[in-house]
Structures are given as C-alpha cells and as structure tokens.
C-alpha cells in the first residue's frame, strides 16, 4: 500500500460506477424482465405445454409399466443397439441392482427426463449445427453464445428459467437442454466441416443439389462425430438432472439433493451410483451403436 500514498486515488482504487447508478440499472433490468414475464407468461406457458405433455406421458409410461416389461424392453434396446452381449448383461445386472436397493421408480423418472432432454437436444442441435457448417457468419455468431452457455455456472441460468417458467419439470427440462445442447451443435458443425473436400467436389461434379449433398455425403460422413455429440449430450443431461432437481425435477437428483441437505452418506452414494450405472449403460450402448454404423470403415484392405 505504500505506493498508493504517492499516487492519486484514481490510480489506486478502481473507479467503479457509483452504487446508486448500479442499483438503478439492476432494478430496471429486473423490473423489465419481470414485466416481460408477467405480460407474456401465459403465451410462453402455452408454447411449452406440449413439452409438459410429452414429458408426463413418457414418465407415466416408464413408471407405471410393470418393472419386468421395462427391463425387457431396455435389454432389447441395448442389445439391438450394441449387438454386444457383455454390455447387455451389464445393463441387466445394474438395473436389477438399482431395483433391489429401492430406486426403481426414481430411476425411471430420471430415465424419462434424460430421454426427453436428449431427443430435444438432437432436434434443436442438429439443424443449428448444419446451419453453422454452411455459413461462417452463423458460426461466428453462434460460437460465442455456445461458449457462454457452457461456461456460465448452471445455477445462474436457473434464475431466469425459474422466473419465466416457475418451478417444475418443464423449467428443469429447459435448463438441462440449455446445458446439454452445445456439444450436439458443436460436433454436428465440426463433423460436417471435416468431410473430405474431394468427396464433396465429386458430389458437386455429378450435379448434386445442396440437399442431395447434405443427405448423401455430409450427414453420413459426419455421423461418427455426430454420434460423439449425442453421447456427450446424454452425459451432460445426466449431470444436469441432479442440479435441475433444485427447481423441482424429481427422480434420482432429488434424492441426491436431500442427501446433501441431511448428510445422508449412504443414500447419497446409492443414488449417485444409480446415476453412474445409467450413464455407463447409455454411453456404452450409444458408442457401440456408433461403431456399428461405421463398420464399413473398419475393414481396411490388407
């Protein structure tokens, strides 16, 4: 501090805008946002209503179906996707373990949530990724937004989500999608941009239209990268459903939140492991599925 005694105050203490002005600005932004929510709240609710229906429908289907039916369907999906006996047996065992410790219903709720979030992320992410790959300007515009979405602490954007949508499943879903969609967009963009220039040139030389090029060349060749994006999106949804339990999403995340609040060591870890189990099932299945789609590139001419 010794230097400061010689220097003018302006150089030593950062010249911040005074408290009054900041308070004014903050208040007007907050009020403006609240006003916006108040006047358009009903319209916004109406727009997201289909999400609510879809989510409720899937959740009911998962929870109220007999457990063995769900288990059989899951095992069938995993086997058909991966064609891998080890992964299938692992899935069956971990689901049975989850059921045994009494977490079946909560797991079903979380599964429904993650399924819906992943589907929505894919539906939103792939078209945006394609647009980004087609135009450098769009890429320049979207990239910083994605940076913000990925680095902003997830608790922070829970605030506007709750202000707009209130507490419940749909706001939770929206928060999860915001968190999980960036890798989908980025990897779709990257995958399309990495497609071999010469193959694209060949498609042009044979007179492909833009749509034919996208359908026949760009999407199929970008598929491994896009699959990696879907995998990342699933993993990030699983991580985020725990945080989203703070604004009313049920399932395993809610149990974790309660365990944190009450220092229930065992409950916390049991639910945590259940999440890990689902994550590994999703991850291995989607990766094995992705590899199976790429079978043609594995057999190299010797």
């Amino acid at each position, binding site marked *: 501090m010794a230097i400061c005694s010689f220097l003018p105050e302006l150089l030593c203490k950062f010249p911040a805008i005074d408290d009054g002005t900041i308070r004014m600005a903050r208040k007007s932004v907050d009020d403006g946002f609240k006003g916006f929510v108040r006047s358009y709240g009903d319209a916004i609710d109406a727009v997201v209503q289909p999400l609510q229906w879809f989510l409720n429908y899937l959740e009911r289907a998962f929870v109220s179906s007999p457990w063995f039916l769900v288990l059989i369907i899951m095992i069938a999906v995993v086997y058909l996707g991966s064609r891998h006996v080890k992964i299938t047996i692992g899935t069956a065992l971990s689901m049975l373990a989850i059921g045994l410790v009494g977490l079946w219903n909560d797991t079903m709720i979380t599964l429904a949530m993650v399924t819906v979030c992943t589907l929505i992320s894919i539906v939103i992410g792939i078209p945006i990724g394609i647009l980004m790959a087609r135009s450098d300007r769009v890429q320049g515009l979207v990239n910083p937004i994605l940076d913000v979405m990925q680095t902003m602490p997830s608790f922070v954007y829970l605030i506007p989500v709750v202000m707009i949508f209130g507490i419940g499943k749909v706001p939770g879903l929206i928060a999860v999608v915001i968190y999980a969609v960036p890798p989908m967009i980025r990897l779709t963009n990257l995958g399309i941009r990495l497609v*071999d220039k*010469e*193959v694209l*040139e*060949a498609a*042009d*030389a*044979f*007179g*492909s*239209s833009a749509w*034919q090029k996208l359908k*026949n*060349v760009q999407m*199929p*060749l970008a*598929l491994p990268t896009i699959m990696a994006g879907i995998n990342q999106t699933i993993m990030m949804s699983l991580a985020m459903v725990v945080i989203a339990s703070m604004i009313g999403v049920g399932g395993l995340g809610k149990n974790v939140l309660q365990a944190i609040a009450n220092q229930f060591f065992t409950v916390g870890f049991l639910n945590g492991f259940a999440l890990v189990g689902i994550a590994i099932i999703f991850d291995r299945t989607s990766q094995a599925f992705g590899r199976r789609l790429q079978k*043609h*590139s*594995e*057999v*190299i*001419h010797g």
Partner: protein
Amino acid sequence: MASHAIEVKNLYKIFGPRGEDFVDVVKKGMGKAELNEKHGHVLGLQDINILMPGGCITVVMGLSGSGKSTLIRHINRLIDPTAGEVLYDGTDVCKMSENDLRQFRRHKTAMVFQKFALLPHRTVLENTIYGLEIQGIERRESEKRARGWIERVGLKGFENHYPNQLSGGMQQRVGLARALTNDADILLMDEAYSALDPLIRMDMQTVLLDLQKELKKTVVFITHDLDEALRLGDKIAILRDGRVVQQGTGQQIVLSPADDYITAFVKEVNRGRVVHVETIMRPLSGNPEGVSLPAGMVLEAAARTMTGAHVAAAHVVDENGRPIGAIDLQTIIAAMVTPTSHADRQAA
C-alpha cells in the same frame, strides 16, 4: 449432330479477392511471381486456348503447380474463371445459370478423381449408381446399368464390398465405373491414375483405351507423366506456370519440342513407341521391297516385325494398302535413339 468438342478460349484464372482487376495487367505481360509479390494474387491460368476435339482423348500435361487441375475444373465449372470462355456445343459453360450448370454436370460430364473420392459408407454398387441416383433415375434401372459397367471395368463379384475393402487400383476402377455409368459425353479424368503403382497404371490405361475405342467420348485427361500422356493422348497440351507451352500430337511434341523446357521433358522418352513409320520413311524408288507396314505403326513395332521376318528393308502402305514410302532398319534405329542434338542443347 454436334461435334461434342470442348473449346477453351482466352481463359484466365487469377486467385484472390480482386482477381478481375488484374486480368489486364497480366495481359500486358506481368508474370506469376511479380503478380504475387506486388498484388498478393496468384496467377492460376493465363490465356489458355485449347480445342479438345470430340471423341478424342486430350491430355493436359504439366508438373505440379502448372495449373492443370485448375484447368480441368473449369470444364465443369467446379472453379469459376476470372475471364474467358469454355464452349461446349456452342454453349458457354461459364455463363450457365446454376440450374443449367447442374443439369450440364448431371447429363453431359462425368469426372474421375486422383484420390478416387468414393463414398466410404456406400458399397461399390451404390457408389456406381451415384450419378444416376442424383438424376432421379429409378433404382432398378440404374442398378442394371451400373452392374454392366462394374463388369466392364473388371469388378464383377465385388458389388457389395465397401471401398475400404479394395486396393487402390480397384477403387479407381469403381471411380471409372461410376463415371461411365453416368453415360455422359465428356469424361474428365483428373490425375486419375497418378496414385496407382506403375503396373496397375499401365493396366488402367489399357482399360481406358479399350473402352474409348468403342465409346468415343470426349476425354480430358490430366497427368504429370509424359509417358502416360504419349500413350493415351490423341492430342497433348503441355502447361507450365498456367500457360500452354506447346500443344499437338505426341509425335509433334517429341520430334519438335517448342522450347528447352519441353526438350528436357522429351529427352528420356522412348521414341520407338511414339514416332510413326510414315514420319521417317523416304519416297519410294522402284518396287516396294520387304514386308509391308501400315501407316501409323510405331517404330518399335515396325522393328519387331522386320527383325521377325529377317528383312532389313520394308515399305509403308496407307489404309488402302497402297505403298507410300520405303524404310530400312538402319533409319528406324537411328530415329529411335535420342538424337545428340538434344543432348547438345541440354549441355549448352
């Protein structure tokens, strides 16, 4: 009936954001290095004028950076020219609307690429029908046509293999089958055989020559290999630094190279396979003696015929069997070895 010739007229390509502004400067004589240094633009092609006759193989030869790949991409306008025209059947390809251009590419041209450019997720058959699929032709019909061409290029039995399961030579056969299935008048081959090893390359050259005998397409073939150019080309254009240095038949280029650059090129050429007997025959004096050789026969084949028949003298006949000149082994051998004047010119 149109001639199906391609005519490239006064074609200029200058790479860079303001290429058009520098065409005049280049016309006034600014070279490639100077343009790059002063204005930061790259001179791709300058003042290209080539007539590519219909039904013939025109080879464009040059080393890397000579602009040959840029030139072939102007014919189906994968690259837009800075100035000039590319005429096909009287239409300027460079002025076509986007839709016309797409139709032109679908129905009039087909292209074979140096690195094959096959779709890795599609089988040989699915790759081969690609052009027809784009045109919207019914699947069963296009498969029938594709199978025919797959058989013609010698890939029968591999229809359901993926490109990754095939060797380079076989992959390029798929590339060729894909182009031929399109049944276009123009076949563009961009260094199509450069990535193949020498034996397979010879093999593929033979495939092309055999097919061309019956198909009579307008083929534009890009290569950096003079032997390949001489073997395939009905007409050869040699490119250097984006400029045509010489064009003509293989024989014209070997026997009268336009400058030192081409002289250096043709020095190592096997003349016995390029020069025709009628080029070096002398006028008939008296009765034709020895065996008769058809005009258009190359010296190597003539020497083989004569030594096989144990004669030292022969006569050349035209297509009607009329004798038009005389030739002897001495002359043939003298013409087959590289003349010393070339070596002298090199030394100087």
